[in-house]
């Protein structure tokens, strides 16, 4: 018998108020591990793509993996998956905290929720199975209150709760699912799927001990990982300053987006918002997910002032950037308050920050008027406006109703698509592909849209991880060569992390070794995993998810990045040369007088085709001319490098990536590649 899993999930139908068990074949566990991999397999087998995201038939899958609930460091996670209402394609979101081990102890590997209830309900899962209970009295409550009330209601403080807040109830497209106040299944609007089903919460409390195939072997693997973390610099940094430790370094290399991705550098940003400053000022203690020695979570308290906040979870890096630097807002207190509001309302901070930054720029550009915003004057560094917008989005009030649809929908309605920064409808997380080119491929080819957790590219480009065991060399952060192969290898690891399920911080901080992971999974499950076999599992899961994306309607056209984040920054480039290299230059010329759109287009096309790709050569040779070097603003050697660095050779990388992945002109994986991985049924569904 396999270990690490129970071999069955709970299937709940909210329309019919029924609960039953479903046995999952053992080979599915072997081939798809668990977590989002197993969820994707179930989704495919049950033709999940035929259901609209906000319809009763869209299955909501809350899935543990084999590692979930063990005390393997970082294995505190589960995956929440469904067809995403925000993107319309495969949606998945990973969540830490303390819910996953409780669910595991109930004797089920996951919960699949179908149908929709007429009145608000919550699900109470114990060793005896699940019970659908009334949640009318909880409807409208925020996530902090809901969690507390439910623990009291079931009379067990050790019970764990995942729930939605008002944002999920109001079907905000990027509503999330919350646990432990600060742990979220953030992305893709899984909270809206729950809200549509009127499922306010799931409470789990279990006491069963799951089987482990080789206890001694697993214990050894666990100790090896713990030992590695003890000496890891990365883990030490995360523990001391949280994930926001990245802010200072990120800003120094141009990885942190500022002012809706317009600026390359904001020196004061990290001083005001970075993890070091938080640790020196408002931090009261650290907090960890289940059985995690890293403990990167921050608990903060703001004792006074307009943004007073009682002791609770503080901003992580994504929140500090999305609700801080992206708005060019320099108030740490307001940033933490905004993060708390998003947590309470149950909204993804990344998408929320992205849509607010887009709206601010649209307001500046005159696309949004005061009549649209209900009298609110949107602008940069306006903490009060930011907090008000968060509230309006959660309750879909006025402009909040438009913003709750996400930047893709909003920019189609109001214009400004060139600065609506998303991929496949999912707002980009806070890492700039111009600094780390790997992130360009990561965002473009990630299954769920722009995502930084789908693979390990961030860590590879930061120089903290390599793929030597997969025979792939690390490439330079801003060179195209080798990026595609690196991304494919990174995705194998990312997929394993999200299926096994383990925290990427913890795994990567310990060295991210696939051999160690294979050893741990072998001992835990009893399946004979090796590095090669695990890499194949990683590929198999990636391809089935890619195929689901295709079946939901995604094509090659969707693997695009917004131009805003591929070209040099409009503001804040190291020299005045940005005037010559940024395409917006064209809009600065008095084109209104010339009124020659075709001329404008042709020139812009020529610039893009010939000038930008060769900009470094041109600038280097210009540098040698005395007329340039004698000017007041002397060209320095680093300027051409800077320009080259920030113009991402995206098309070149993507073509190579498609070749390696064997993706056809419609964006589908080839039949032969699918069949090679044992996915004949997927090939048939895709290619007919």
């Amino acid at each position, binding site marked *: 018998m396999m270990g690490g899993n129970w071999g069955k999930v709970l299937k709940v139908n909210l329309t019919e108020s029924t609960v039953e068990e479903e046995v999952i074949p053992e080979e599915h566990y072997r081939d798809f591990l668990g977590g989002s991999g197993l969820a994707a397999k179930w989704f495919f087998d049950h033709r999940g793509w035929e259901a609209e995201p906000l319809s009763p038939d869209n299955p909501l899958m809350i899935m543990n993996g084999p590692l979930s609930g063990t005390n393997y460091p970082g294995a505190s996670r589960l995956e929440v998956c469904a067809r995403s209402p925000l993107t319309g394609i495969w949606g998945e979101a990973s969540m830490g905290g303390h819910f996953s081990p409780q669910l595991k102890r109930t004797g089920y590997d996951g919960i699949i929720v179908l149908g929709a209830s007429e009145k608000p309900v919550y699900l109470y899962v114990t060793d005896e199975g699940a019970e659908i209970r009334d949640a009318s009295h909880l409807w409208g409550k925020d996530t902090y209150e809901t969690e507390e009330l439910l623990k009291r209601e079931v009379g067990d403080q050790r019970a764990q709760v995942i729930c939605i807040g008002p944002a999920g109830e109001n079907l905000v497209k990027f509503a999330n699912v919350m646990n432990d106040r600060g742990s979220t299944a953030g992305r893709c609007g899984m909270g809206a799927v729950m809200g549509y089903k009127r499922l306010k919460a799931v409470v789990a409390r279990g006491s069963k001990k799951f089987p482990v195939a080789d206890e001694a072997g697993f214990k050894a693997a666990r100790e090896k990982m713990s030992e590695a973390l003890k000496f890891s610099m990365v883990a030490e*940094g995360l523990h001391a300053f*949280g*994930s926001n430790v*990245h802010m*200072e370094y990120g800003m120094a290399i141009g990885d942190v987006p500022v002012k809706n991705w317009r600026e390359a550098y904001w020196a004061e940003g990290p001083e005001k918002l970075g993890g070091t400053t938080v640790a020196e000022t408002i931090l009261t203690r650290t907090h960890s997910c289940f059985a995690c020695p890293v403990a990167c979570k921050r608990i903060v308290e703001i004792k006074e002032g307009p943004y007073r906040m009682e002791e609770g979870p503080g901003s992580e890096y994504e929140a500090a950037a999305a609700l801080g630097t992206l708005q060019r807002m320099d108030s740490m207190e307001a940033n933490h308050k905004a993060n708390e509001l998003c947590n309470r309302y149950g909204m993804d901070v990344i998408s929320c920050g992205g849509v607010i930054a887009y709206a601010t720029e649209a307001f500046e550009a005159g696309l949004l008027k005061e009549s649209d915003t209900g009298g609110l004057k949107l602008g940069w560094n306006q903490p009060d406006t930011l907090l008000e917008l968060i509230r309006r989005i959660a309750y879909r009030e006025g402009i909040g109703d438009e913003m709750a649809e996400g930047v893709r929908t909003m920019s189609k309605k109001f214009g400004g698509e060139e600065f609506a920064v998303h991929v496949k409808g999912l707002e980009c997380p806070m890492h700039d592909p111009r600094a780390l080119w790997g992130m360009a491929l990561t965002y473009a080819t990630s299954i769920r849209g722009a995502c930084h957790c789908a693979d390990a590219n*961030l*860590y590879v480009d930061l120089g*903290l991880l390599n793929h030597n065991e997969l025979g792939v060399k690390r490439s330079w952060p801003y060179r195209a060569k080798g990026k595609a192969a690196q991304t494919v290898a990174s995705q194998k690891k990312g997929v394993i992390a999200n299926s096994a399920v383990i925290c990427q911080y913890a795994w990567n901080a310990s060295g991210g070794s696939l051999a160690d992971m294979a050893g741990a999974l072998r001992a835990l499950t009893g399946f004979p995993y090796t590095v090669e076999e695990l890499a194949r599992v990683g590929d198999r899961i990636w391809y089935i998810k890619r195929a689901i994306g295709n079946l939901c309607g995604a094509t090659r056209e969707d693997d695009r990045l917004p131009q805003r984040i591929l070209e040099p920054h409009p503001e804040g480039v190291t020299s005045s040369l940005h005037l010559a290299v940024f395409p917006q230059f064209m809009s600065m010329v008095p084109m209104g007088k010339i009124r020659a759109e075709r001329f404008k287009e042709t020139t812009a096309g020529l610039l893009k085709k010939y000038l930008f790709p060769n900009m470094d050569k041109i600038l280097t040779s210009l540098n040698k001319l005395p007329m340039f070097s004698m000017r007041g603003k002397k060209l320095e050697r*680093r300027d051409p490098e800077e320009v080259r660095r920030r113009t991402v050779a995206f098309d070149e990388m993507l073509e190579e990536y498609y070749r390696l992945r064997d993706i056809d002109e419609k964006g589908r994986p080839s039949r032969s590649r699918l069949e090679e991985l044992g996915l004949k049924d997927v090939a048939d569904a895709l290619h007919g």
Partner: protein
Amino acid sequence: MRPPRGYGYEEMPLVKLYATLRKAAGEKEYRSRARNVGQVLEELRERYGDGVDRYLRGCIVLVNGQNVGYLKGKRTKLKEEDEVSVFPPLAGG
């Protein structure tokens, strides 16, 4: 500390320390007499003792925001107005 080649203290390169390295060193920044990046690293070991050594292995050094890996590594020369940022290996996000 004696400023090199006769320029004043304020004109020496500024070395900034970050995250856990800052914590171990107990200092945020200082003016350096080093003439290249290699010398900065040696100076750090000298200045703060063996305690910082582990943070310097695999550290990331930026000179005016440019990773020295893409300049001349440890041989990257420093001018008086340069700002050197030293990060221990870290990641977040």
